């Protein structure tokens, strides 16, 4: 659409032909209609510390982001390679630590990392799968040039938006889907169920009992937790519904306690088990980790996977991929300066106004600095922070992110986007849902796509080949 020569770019061609035939006021009305649909369905997220509007909608843009079959095939290959490497890395870190012995990743990065869980050392989860569900954040800078921004190997969220965005589009523009062949996403929940079933502990029934653990309805992602449980036909449970009975994790049903084989937990590691971890946690289940250690429960994702996805480890991903797969990484990393290295820190401080600085353990777009958009005072503040705590930060160049069209009151306008494809991993296969969640920075020129910072989402179409 915006490839310069004013001719629609490949995958957008059919969509553009349709779009040109539309009345723009009708489309704007559809945008309002979409919002009402989301409200009715209750697709909201809660914002911490915001009592005025504790349930908010993530703005939805009705223009799909379209990816060609060829581009997707290339991406999917790179994603699969990356996820396999992540899983192998976590396994290795909690077993022989070959990669540290080989000197490819500094030992200090693991031993001093809060996400490292000593309790996991030597423990082998069912099927040797750690990263059951992964979200890989990807940006494109030029045609077919993709960079991985971030790996999410703990409890990646957003998949419900991927699914509901498609539902909304199907509801509002049914005619589009008969004209244009878009790869389906709506079997995600079944795929998830199957993938988790394949990871059930030994000795489970053929149809193991699955449940989704949520911190509760005041959690910002509660809608997603209930949505996923609902879609895959699993119980949605909270800590208060669970206890350990006869060596198994069990949930309190109307007829007594019933064992659970696989728990898709949306509660952080530290809160899982007040006996083994944070004693103040009321979100978890006392003794659950003992059941896990005994091999009688699958936790998805495994505790301790956070060791693979923090921003300091990220910069070693090319080495990690090569180490475990013997191949060059298919997807590129964004060049990253690790501020704990004095040379890098010096460079970052000199070029702060051109860089993006992120906290190593941060997420959700909080605590980051976008150099080109920052005021002098902000730059000064960050210089101080960097000097005081260099190991807490990494820096990356601001990429010339490609943009895609969104609908505004003045017609189509380009905005920056990223993409989070969702990956499921079992001992049998790696499944990647075609597409993913496209997040879009709604403000002109903005690079921040996080929903907590005013970003929106759009449907993501992968064309069928």
């Amino acid at each position, binding site marked *: 659409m915006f490839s310069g020569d004013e001719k629609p770019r490949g995958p957008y061609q059919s969509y553009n032909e349709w779009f040109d035939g539309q009345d723009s006021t009708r489309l704007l009305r559809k945008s309002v209609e979409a919002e009402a649909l989301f*409200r009715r*369905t*209750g697709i909201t997220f809660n914002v911490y510390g915001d009592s005025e509007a504790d349930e908010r909608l993530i703005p939805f843009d009705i223009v799909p982001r379209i990816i060609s079959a060829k581009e997707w095939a290339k991406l999917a290959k790179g994603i699969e390679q990356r996820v396999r490497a992540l899983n192998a890395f976590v396994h290795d870190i909690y077993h022989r630590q070959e990669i540290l012995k080989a000197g490819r990743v500094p030992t200090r990065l693991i031993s001093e990392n809060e996400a490292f869980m000593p309790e996991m050392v030597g423990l082998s989860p069912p099927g040797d799968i750690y990263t059951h569900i992964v979200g890989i954040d990807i940006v494109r800078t030029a045609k077919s040039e993709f960079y991985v921004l971030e790996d999410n190997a703990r409890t990646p969220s957003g998949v419900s938006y991927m699914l509901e965005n498609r539902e909304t589009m199907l509801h509002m523009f049914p005619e589009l889907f008969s004209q244009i062949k878009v790869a389906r996403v709506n079997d995600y929940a079944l795929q998830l169920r199957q993938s988790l079933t394949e990871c059930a502990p030994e000795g489970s029934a053929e149809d193991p009992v699955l449940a989704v653990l949520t911190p509760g309805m005041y959690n910002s992602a509660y809608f997603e937790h209930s949505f996923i449980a609902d879609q895959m036909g699993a119980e949605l449970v909270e800590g208060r*519904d669970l206890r350990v009975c006869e060596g198994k994790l069990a949930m*309190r*049903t*109307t007829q007594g306690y019933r064992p659970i084989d696989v728990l898709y937990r949306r509660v952080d590691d530290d809160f899982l088990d007040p006996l083994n971890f944070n004693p103040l946690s009321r979100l978890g289940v006392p003794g659950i980790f003992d059941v896990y250690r005994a091999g009688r429960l699958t936790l998805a994702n495994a505790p301790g996977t956070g060791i693979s996805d923090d921003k300091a480890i990220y910069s070693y991903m090319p080495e990690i991929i090569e180490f475990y797969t013997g191949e060059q990484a298919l997807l590129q990393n964004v060049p990253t300066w690790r501020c704990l290295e004095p040379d890098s820190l010096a460079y970052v401080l000199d070029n702060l106004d051109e860089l993006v600085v992120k906290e190593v353990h941060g997420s959700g777009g909080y605590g980051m600095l976008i150099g080109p958009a920052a005021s002098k005072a902000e730059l000064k503040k960050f210089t101080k922070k960097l000097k005081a705590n260099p190991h807490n930060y990494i820096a990356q160049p601001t990429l010339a992110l490609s943009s895609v069209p969104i609908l505004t009151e003045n017609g189509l306008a380009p905005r920056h986007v990223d993409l989070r494809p969702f990956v499921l991993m079992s001992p049998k296969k790696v499944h990647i849902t075609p597409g993913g969640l496209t997040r879009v920075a709604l403000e002109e020129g903005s690079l921040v796509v996080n929903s907590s910072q005013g970003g929106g989402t759009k449907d993501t179409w992968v064309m069928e080949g």
Partner: protein
Amino acid sequence: MLGTTAGGLFWMFRNLERSENTARLVEAGLRIALTRPGGGHDEWESVVNTAGAAADYLSTHQTFDGASVVDYLLRDPSNPSSVLSAMEAARNNARMVRTALTREVWEATNESWMRLTAALTKPIQDRDLPQLLSLIRRETTLVRGSLAGTMMRNDQYDFAHLGMFLERSDNTARILDVKYYLLLPPEAQVGSRLDSIQWETILRSVSAQRAFRWANPGEMNARAIASFLILDPRMPRSLAFCYSKLNDNLSYLESTYGSSVPSKAMAQDLLQSTTASSIGDIFDQGLHEFLQSRIELANQLASQIETDYRFHG
């Protein structure tokens, strides 16, 4: 099903039923206030009594004037039984048990909540009140309709119904109890204009004026009204009807789960001890005592259901 989910369904429908009943009470109060000179402060007081909220009301108000009572019952967030609070609670219950609801039931509940909270955020103008009350009834009816039209007849449905009929029987019993003095003889007063207005209020507050006339063409007297609202098994808000539904749903649960529980026996006793009496027996025994014992037994039944089906562990 999780015990928590069963409890959530139970309370969701209790709360929905409660908001609908509160709207009806206000509707009946409004009717009296409009048709009687003097604004009907007594009537509003008895409406608050029926809602079981007199003590709470008086902690923040001095008089039972119409505007304050209406505001308190419909939109006061500090009143846990106000329509606003009950809808909020019902919707929170629904969010909690979303995996046990069809999409239709969830959306109907969510939309009702959105519309009613929007309608109840601003103070209510007199002229908007009738419309607002019918909106409340319509919204809760939509939820009930989607329940009937889309939910499986399984344990989920049974718990929803248990909550609905416990709340409803409680409401009918309270209405009768607050007004019982009107229903008692002396026969001499029968037929006075005041009484017939009051009786009509009783019927109106359970939406039963028309139904009563069908069942009792031509006559309106205290005994017939009491009999209709306590014993008539065809009247969907009568005690006999509600208790029989409770008994049915508990027996469906027993057969679904293949095990018997104490609450089923309690429901059966409650039903039998109620329907075994004639209206004459009830008046002889003392209407007030009879109604008080129903309210008490239904409360015991509710907490036995909670225990039997592990709502809280």
